């Protein structure tokens, strides 16, 4: 009786574990955060360029700006926490400054 349920049981466990694992997978280490900040800086730069040429709507640029700011505040949070080494903190600050500058450039493209 048990043997017949085992394939479905196994799959269930796999699905459950995968879901749980993905929920628990939050990242959080500094190098990953730096990459994220740099990625968002590039995104905001591209958005500023697109905005300048009128490729995208202001409404859409606002949404990207919000997402960029969210990424920045998450980066800042990690930078000011005591989970990072001083060297990591420096790199994080530089990456954060890059994103902040990009956001400012996007702001200057106007509404």
């Amino acid at each position, binding site marked *: 009786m048990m043997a*017949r349920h085992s*394939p*479905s049981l196994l*799959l269930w466990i*796999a*699905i459950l*574990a*995968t*879901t749980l*694992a*993905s929920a628990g*997978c*939050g*990242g959080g280490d500094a190098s*990953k955060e730096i*990459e*994220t900040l*740099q*990625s*968002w800086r*590039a*995104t905001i*730069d*591209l*958005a500023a360029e*697109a905005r300048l*040429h*009128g*490729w*995208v*709507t202001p*409404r*859409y640029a*606002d*949404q*990207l700006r919000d*997402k960029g700011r969210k*990424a920045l505040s998450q980066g800042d949070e990690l930078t000011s926490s005591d989970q990072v080494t001083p060297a990591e903190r420096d790199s994080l600050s530089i990456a954060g400054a890059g994103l902040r500058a990009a956001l400012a450039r996007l702001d200057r493209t106007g509404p």
Partner: protein
Amino acid sequence: MKKIAEVALGVITGIGGFLEVGSLATSVQGGAEFGFQLGWAVLLGSISLMVLMEASGRLAAVSNRTLVDQLRERFGIRFFLLPLIVGFLVSLLVLSAEIGGVTLALQMATGIRFQLWALPIAFLAWLLLWRGTFGLVEKGASMLGLVSVVFAIGAAALHPRWTSVGAGLLPTPPAHDSARYWYLAVSILGASISPYLIMFYSSGAIEDGWTHDHLGINRVTAVLGNLFGGGLALMVLVVGALVFLPRHIHVDAYEQLALVLTPALSHPGFVFFLATLGITCFGTTLEIALAIAYLLAQGLGWQWSENMRPSQDSRFSTTYSLVILLAAIPILLGVNVLGLTNISMVLTAASLPVTVVPMVLLMNDRDVMGKSVNGVVANVALVALAVMSCAILLAALPLQLLGGG
């Protein structure tokens, strides 16, 4: 000429939507992080889907029963429970992600938060299913889905080195982040080879009354349609590779995706991206909602047809109505749609064995298939696919842990 047009129409409509939330997101992610290197996963995905669609269409045309019918009849309820539950849950997740895709397209276009679009979109989808016919869903979804050709135009405008694109079609080991590489490969495979598509396709063969005479059309549709769909997904990957990779943009949010066509096509690139995302996800929403209702109705022997009035198959029509509502709830609650998309694609890939392995047996069964049993080529392909799907199932959990973040 008229004949060619007919076949072309058949190919286009037979396959349903070409791109959807999963293939858009995973292909851009693949291109952004690994350039053209993951092109093979797109190719392998479309060849796999080609094999499965051809087989399930042939099964339906020859035996006059859908894949789901056969799974229940041949393997009994104890086994059938597995594809039933797994297929239901995974398709429900994908359905949710598709609704998320439509609502995000609307958010980016209007500035109104995507959560607020969840119920209106669910209602519209439900209304179309309630009032429309199978032909409307099938043809509407595919015809409007042709808007995704914009990715081919975008890719061409960026002048990629086509030899490099071609080189990516052969699998090579990654130079960095191998866990992420294989995770994205599995996601791309999951986005291409969806069980709901196979259920939808084989039910469509019954809805459209296929017989032995349709075996040729079935083959042409499966081959050409998937080459076309796979080709478009590859173009998405190419655009992602040329626009996001040099800028080191990793995709963390759907909002980033809408920039991907702007360097190549400027403002139309933005508009057509949103149109592609919104329309293809909406078309797929209709198809998955139907596929889930087909799965339940066929598995349990209820009356079913999208061409009947809801009152004639009330269990079937109630099922798709409830399913759409259920899938809209996570979006209403503001779930992270990109995360939902990625997890659904990996789970889709992991769920493949429950459909593919029994198919190997069905397609070789003379009681079911008569003279149309699998030949050597189809068998080698199907068995290889079954083995691959089992390997993916085993790898999915470790990859999600190591490469999903």
